[in-house]
């Protein structure tokens, strides 16, 4: 058993998931590839969205992958940090907006 749950070298093996289920694996990678193609959004914009989501998902593989992807596209560190703050703002906003539910419940139970 590996001593750590995450090994950076495992990212390179991602493609191997198709070995245990070729059909679904291939469908996933086709879909994935298509999503990141230039479309109504540029590939650069998509890369920044992916970087922000990588952080909110706290996926270390994705963070490595989309930091490098951003650098390759000429994304600056200022742009990267701003993107992460967008993710963080949504995360904290999502927590805080539930405060309204708490307030509703208090009001109902305790007038």
């Amino acid at each position, binding site marked *: 058993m590996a001593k750590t749950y995450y090994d950076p070298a495992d990212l*390179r093996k991602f493609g191997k998931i198709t070995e245990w289920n070729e059909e679904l694996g291939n469908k996933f990678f086709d879909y994935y590839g298509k999503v990141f193609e*230039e479309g109504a959004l*540029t*590939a*650069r914009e998509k890369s920044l969205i992916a970087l922000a989501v990588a952080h909110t998902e706290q996926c270390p593989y994705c963070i490595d992958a989309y930091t*490098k992807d951003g*650098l*390759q*596209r*000429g994304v*600056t560190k200022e742009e990267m940090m701003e993107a992460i703050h967008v993710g963080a703002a949504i995360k904290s906003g999502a927590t805080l907006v539930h405060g309204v539910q708490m307030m509703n419940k208090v009001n109902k139970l305790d007038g």
Partner: protein
Amino acid sequence: MATKSLKKLGSDLAKSNKQLEILSGGIFADGELPTFKNKISETSQFPLKAKTLEILQINVGYMCNQVCEHCHVDAGPDRKEIMTQETMQQILDVIKTTGAHTLDLTGGAPEMNPNFRWFVEEASKIGIKDFIVRSNLTIIRANKKYYDLPQFFKKHNIHVVSSMPHWTRGKTDKQRGEGVFDMSIKALQELNAVGYGMPGSDLKLDLVYNPSGAFLPGDQSAMEKDFKKALMEDFSIQFHNLFAITNLPIARFLDFLIASENYEDYMYSLVEAYNPAAVANVMCTNTLSVSWDGYLFDCDFNQMLELPVNSKSKHISDYKTELLEGRNIVISQHCYGCTAGAGSSCQGVVA
């Protein structure tokens, strides 16, 4: 930021055999990654063979006013290797006899060679179709004696190709040195002022982008769009094309990869991005590189690794088309740098 060449520092990596040892050892020796020879053999592209000569690339010396972090030449102010007028004359004699349509001067900073202007004047008389000078831009602002370079380039209809790692100051200065961005911007504005890089202008001004770290260049046309937009908005600068060039794992860039523990990951990236279609058009198949002392190489990178052409004709004074055409190109694992993704050459992508 580097201030001295690896050679001046007495680094082991200043020795080409040490670099070749690293490129052949480790993950390539134990079979974790395929060697370049094995990889191109998969698509029956080994041995790579030289076709008709189209581009003659001349390295007129390793002296430079800059010490860029990832320079594959290990150039800098402390390098004394400078091409003599005698070698230049031998090159001029050869150009007249070959059908090469492009003459490409590089360095170091080619303008620092004391015979640079003489060479340009003589070579431009021959009537080469595309006459390139790879200028680092800052040289134009480095000293009063260089201030008139834009006019000089214009007079001889030189195609100016300049390095520009990013459209922001921070990323540019990190790679090329403090103050380089501002000086480069000023130089580009001066080139624009005499007509270089303007839409429809015959005075060609192209920029070269190479990544500032251990990653591959992004899509060339997307990068070109970003560069054009930013340079126009921020500085009203125009240029024609952007060439995206991959950093090859040699000299100072190899030193950086090893020191930052990025070497293996970088080689993996190159091998994973291997594109057989790029192999068909790698620049060594139509280019010859001439070193400051007149020796012949398949490319500027092989020159730095001291891997001479595989031909009896090894020096410009001994140039024989029949001996050089069809020769087998000398390869090692650094060649993966030219076949990754859309490929890479001194003229940008090849596939």
